[in-house]
Structures are given as structure tokens and as C-alpha cells.
């Protein structure tokens, strides 16, 4: 057993290793916080921050999450909540892709936007936030617009892609790139009181639920706007899907799309 392993076992209480002990171990043994986390989980111990994950996510599952890379494409309404939830869940690497900076009209719903960071790159704000809440998580920022031309490169090494985009055309490009490289994709979209979620696993095609009768890239959100709660609900449904895909759980939305109506509190399942 290595000295690090012995240290962790000696400092575990009821199977839990505190944040302070994890930080001490990283300093003392000159390894990254994430590597200490992996060592903790490999011994069936649990970083104390994840103790309320237990039963929902096992230690082995937590180790799988730590070794996973999730790309969040779009860091606005959906993306902000997704990054927050995936970082707290313990996904080891989050690739954040967005070309924009925060503007005042983002403040009504975009979790990462603050009065003090208007004008800041959304991906830079994401990196800052993740560093503050979970030092085991590495956020890789790409201040770039996703597209067919750079898609494969941006998604290199990624385990699951999450669609948090704000227009249909780029969504279709993302779904196509994911199909080409056999990458699972969790789709989400919102407008006003309404949202939808679907999961495209390798070999599947959810294009029918992304398509539209008209030609425009935008939907009814241009008329309805987006309030604070709709991105929170839809992003949370997406985060649950990502968790299940990463942990190979049954019961994903594979082959189905969930349509959410928060005005009338109705959830409709659409078979693809």
C-alpha cells in the first residue's frame, strides 16, 4: 500500500474522507486533488462531499463519474445549471463550449451570470464557478461557436455531449457530429413555460424531434422568452440523463422525448 493510501485510510471516518484531509493529502504527497479523489474512491471510501450521493451513486459509480468527460455545448440558461449540477455530481472533466459573453438580459435565468461579471466570457465564468465548488473537477473552456467544422475536434475525448444550444441549426449539426463519432448526446430545449428533453445514443437518430416545419433556426422562445425556472427544470432532467448514461443505467429517454409544460404541469412522452 502506498503512503497516500495509508494516509487516506488512517484519516477516513465512517468511510468518509473530509475535504481538509483530501487537501492535506494533495499537498503532502504533491498530487492533484482529483488524483487523491480517485485514490479515495478506489479504496471504497468516499470523499465527504459526496456522502449524500451515496445509495444514488455508489463509490464505484462515483469513480466512473470522476473519470468521465462531459461536453456542455452552450453555457447560457441550460448550460449554467448543467455545469453546476455536473460539477457537484462529481464529473471529473467538463468541456464548456460557448462563444458569448454575459449580457444584462441573461441575468433573469443564467445561473453563471452576475451583475459583477457582465461582459465576461461565459466559459471563463464557468471555470471560475467550478473551481469554487469542486476542486476535483477540471473545466476545459472553449470560447468558440460549435459547428460541423470544429465539432469533432471539440468533442475529442468526450464521453457524453449535452445540447444546451439556443438554435435548431447548430443542434442538428451537433446531433450529426455525435452520430458520426458514436457519442451519446442529451438534448434539451426551452421556450417560455415549455421544454423538451431527449437522449440520442450511438446508432440512434433524434433528428425528427429537432426538426421543424419552417425554415428558421429559432423557435417560439423568440416570442415567449425564457423565465428562470424552465432552464433549471430542463437542465436538471438532462443532468439526470447524463448521470444514467455515464453509469450505464437503464431507464434513459432512449427512443423517447419528454415534453414538459410547466404552465399546466403536464409531461408528455413522445416516441421517436
Amino acid at each position, binding site marked *: 500500500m502506498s503512503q497516500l493510501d495509508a494516509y487516506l485510510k488512517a484519516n477516513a471516518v465512517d468511510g468518509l474522507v473530509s475535504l481538509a484531509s483530501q487537501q492535506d493529502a494533495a499537498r503532502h504527497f504533491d498530487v492533484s486533488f482529483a488524483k487523491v479523489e480517485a485514490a479515495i474512491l478506489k479504496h471504497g471510501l468516499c470523499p465527504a462531499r459526496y456522502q449524500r450521493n451515496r445509495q444514488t451513486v455508489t463509490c464505484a459509480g462515483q469513480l466512473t463519474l470522476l473519470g468521465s468527460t462531459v461536453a456542455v455545448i452552450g453555457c447560457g*440558461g*441550460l448550460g449554467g445549471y448543467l455545469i453546476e449540477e455536473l460539477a457537484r455530481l462529481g464529473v471529473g472533466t467538463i468541456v464548456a463550449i460557448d462563444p458569448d459573453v454575459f449580457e444584462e438580459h441573461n441575468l433573469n435565468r443564467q445561473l453563471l451570470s452576475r451583475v459583477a461579471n457582465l461582459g465576461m466570457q461565459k466559459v471563463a465564468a464557468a471555470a471560475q464557478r467550478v473551481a469554487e465548488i469542486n476542486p476535483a473537477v477540471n473545466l476545459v473552456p472553449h470560447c468558440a461557436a460549435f459547428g460541423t467544422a470544429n465539432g469533432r475536434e471539440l468533442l475529442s475525448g468526450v464521453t457524453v455531449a449535452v445540447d*444546451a444550444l439556443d438554435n435548431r441549426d447548430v443542434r442538428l449539426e451537433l446531433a450529426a457530429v455525435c452520430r458520426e463519432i458514436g457519442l451519446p448526446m442529451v438534448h434539451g430545449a426551452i*421556450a*417560455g413555460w415549455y421544454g423538451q428533453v431527449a437522449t440520442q445514443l450511438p446508432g440512434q437518430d433524434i433528428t425528427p424531434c429537432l426538426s*421543424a*416545419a419552417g425554415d428558421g433556426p429559432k423557435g417560439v422562445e423568440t416570442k415567449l422568452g425564457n423565465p428562470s425556472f424552465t432552464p433549471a427544470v430542463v437542465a436538471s432532467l438532462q443532468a439526470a440523463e447524463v448521470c444514467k448514461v455515464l453509469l450505464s443505467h437503464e431507464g434513459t429517454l432512449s427512443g423517447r422525448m419528454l415534453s414538459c409544460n410547466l404552465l399546466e404541469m403536464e409531461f408528455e412522452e*413522445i416516441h421517436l
Partner: protein
Amino acid sequence: MQVTVKLFASFRTGREPIVSGQYPAGTTVADIVAQKEIPVSEIGIMLVNHRHVALDRVLVDGDVLAIFPLLGGG
């Protein structure tokens, strides 16, 4: 022939969510969209009997048509 039209999300504003009505033979999805005064540019998913269809789909007796708006926001 009888067709049931189910509208979802914002398409319910000012319209009945579920209506069964009599339509002449040859009626298409586009005809019903026009009758309901739904802007085509706002339409996302269209299903007949739970299967995805296009605007030119000709309906038959007993069909259930569901129309959802295009949600594009993130």
C-alpha cells in the same frame, strides 16, 4: 371523417387543447394548421398516431394529430 387534433404548449393559447372534428376526405395536416391559424414557422414536431409526419400528410378517419411548437432556446 373524424380527426382528433391535440395541441401542445403555446399552441393552446386561445385554442382548445383537444378537439375532435369532421373533415372532408383528402384533408392534410397543412389544412388543419391553416384552419387553426397556427404559423407554420412556429411548428416543431407533428405526429399522426404517434408517428412523425410532414405538412403534406393526408389524414384518414380516426387519425389523432398532435402538433408541438418548435422550442429552440437554451
